[in-house]
């Protein structure tokens, strides 16, 4: 039986305050294929998901001296299902 201490090899830290990844720089040249994010996000989902429920991912371009405000430049959805859909 585990003693209740946090073991990073077994346990997973859950941070529900965080709803987005850390920011990453993309230089947008012709040879920049990918934007590597490599981050983990936890969300709470309904206990009995309906067939219309989705997970939405939004790619947000952040505000900077040359960009006046935040823009959502891309999005995609993923269905939320359990074994009883």
């Amino acid at each position, binding site marked *: *039986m585990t003693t209740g201490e946090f073991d990073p090899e077994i346990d997973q830290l859950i941070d529900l305050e965080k*709803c987005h990844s850390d*920011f990453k720089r993309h230089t947008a040249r012709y*040879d920049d294929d990918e934007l590597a*994010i490599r981050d983990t996000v936890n969300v709470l989902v*309904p*206990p009995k998901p309906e067939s219309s429920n989705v997970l939405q*991912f939004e790619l947000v371009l952040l505000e900077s001296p040359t960009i006046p405000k935040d823009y959502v430049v891309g999005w995609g959805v993923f269905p939320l299902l359990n074994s009883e859909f």
Partner: protein
Amino acid sequence: MNFGSNINKLVRNIKTQRETISQSYGPLTLHPLTQARPIFEIHQDIDPDGFLKANYLAKKQGEVPGILNINLIECRCLKDKISPGYFILRVKVLSRIGQSPMTYDLNDCFDEYKELSQNLRYYSAKKRKYLDREHREMEVKAEDGTKITKSAVATGLNFFNAGQAKKVGMSVDLDQINEDLK
């Protein structure tokens, strides 16, 4: 032949097929999915305490919002389709596409999560202990001629210690497992 008549013909065929199948084999599914029994079930007579805990676990998991752990890896093939700058990837749970996000408060169900995780750990530790032990059984004749179930002779690396396993009946000692878990 138009499209509508084709569809009607198809539906009629399927209905007749379903009738023939249900007449010869009975109903296609025994229980609806919501009433079906779980694949791994603890038997009530063998382990009443574990049975209650497993039932509670199954019931609570349908009431408490679930936690998803999402690994965001990369956005592929962006190239110069978007302007340069700093980006984040935001995740939302929507009730349907285009609607406002659904939010749940962790504080409402924090105690239930604690209880559920303890029960899950108890369940998995118990399962591990059970699987780790030798629990093969075989029928042997007792001295008075009756057939009894006995734990089978142990094999594997420590086969020479097999003489110690002489418990008649169920070879897994549930009381011992419960004591170990405490």
